[in-house]
């Protein structure tokens, strides 16, 4: 059974590059349409948090280190 993952973002540092979006195997990441962070980018957000399996592919590909990944024990 797949793990239940949880993501934490430092969204104020996100530059909207979408490397995490392409990396996510569950396709649950997307740039936020509405929010603009203080750098002027649409930061990353999770569409369907329940589907996160905690693989950390997003964190692997994030150049700015804004993603931390946890799983339920």
């Amino acid at each position, binding site marked *: 059974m797949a793990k239940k993952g949880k993501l934490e973002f430092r969204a104020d540092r996100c530059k909207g*590059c979408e490397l995490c979006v392409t990396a996510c195997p569950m396709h649950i990441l997307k740039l936020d349409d509405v929010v603009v962070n203080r750098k002027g980018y649409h930061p990353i957000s999770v569409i369907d948090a329940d589907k996160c399996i905690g693989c950390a592919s997003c964190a692997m*590909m*994030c*150049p*700015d280190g804004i993603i*931390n*990944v946890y799983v339920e*024990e």
Partner: protein
Amino acid sequence: MKPVFEYTKGMRETELHYCPGCTHGIAHRLIMEVLEERGDIGNAIGVSPVGCSIVAHQYMNVDMLESPHGRAPAVASGIKRVHPNSPVFTYQGDGDLASIGTNEIIHAAERGEKFCTFFINNAIYGMTGGQMAPTTLIGQKTTTCVDGRTVEQAGMPMRMCEIISNMDRAVYVERVSLDSPANVRKAKSAVRRAFKVQDLKLGFAFVEFLSICPTNWGLSAPKSLEWLRENMMPYYPVQQFKCPEEVKEVR
């Protein structure tokens, strides 16, 4: 909740100035993660190059100094003489290492200098606004070859791993890619092997990272990953050229 991935303490709090999607951020993190795992953040000394990552010392939490363009392998050779047991590394871009610095890297490799060189190959000059690099591909357009690089005008792109692996004392030479999570994990293994080679004082360790430059390639970061796979990988094959027996098992 158990952490699966937490950003390494080897990277400082300062926000990276690199362009959105620039894989410098990934390469920096991998090196610092490996140093943190080894307990070497307090011991390591790094040399940052002229190029976009001249300010790597603002992000990497180790003693660092800037080097004149291309000379990092010489600077690192001097540091290693004074601190033979400290982990020393150079971090260099393609203009720095494959253009102005070819003399220094060839000689450091052949001397078997006991430091690691991490070479960021993104086939273009980033900091100065997108000029041709020695690693720019045939047909690739840059600001100093606007109609695309030709062999007649600029010669063939330089494959540094292939050149370095001809030096007897370059004992560990590997090309990796930062285009996918799987390849990023493999790249981290290469960084681990490189520092192990330094530990064992076996000789010179060289890791080339295929990287993207979305801004100067004129592509989004995700499209840049595709461009890297379609264009760079065929010419710059991802492979391990040389690896000493002693570190083959390091993952």
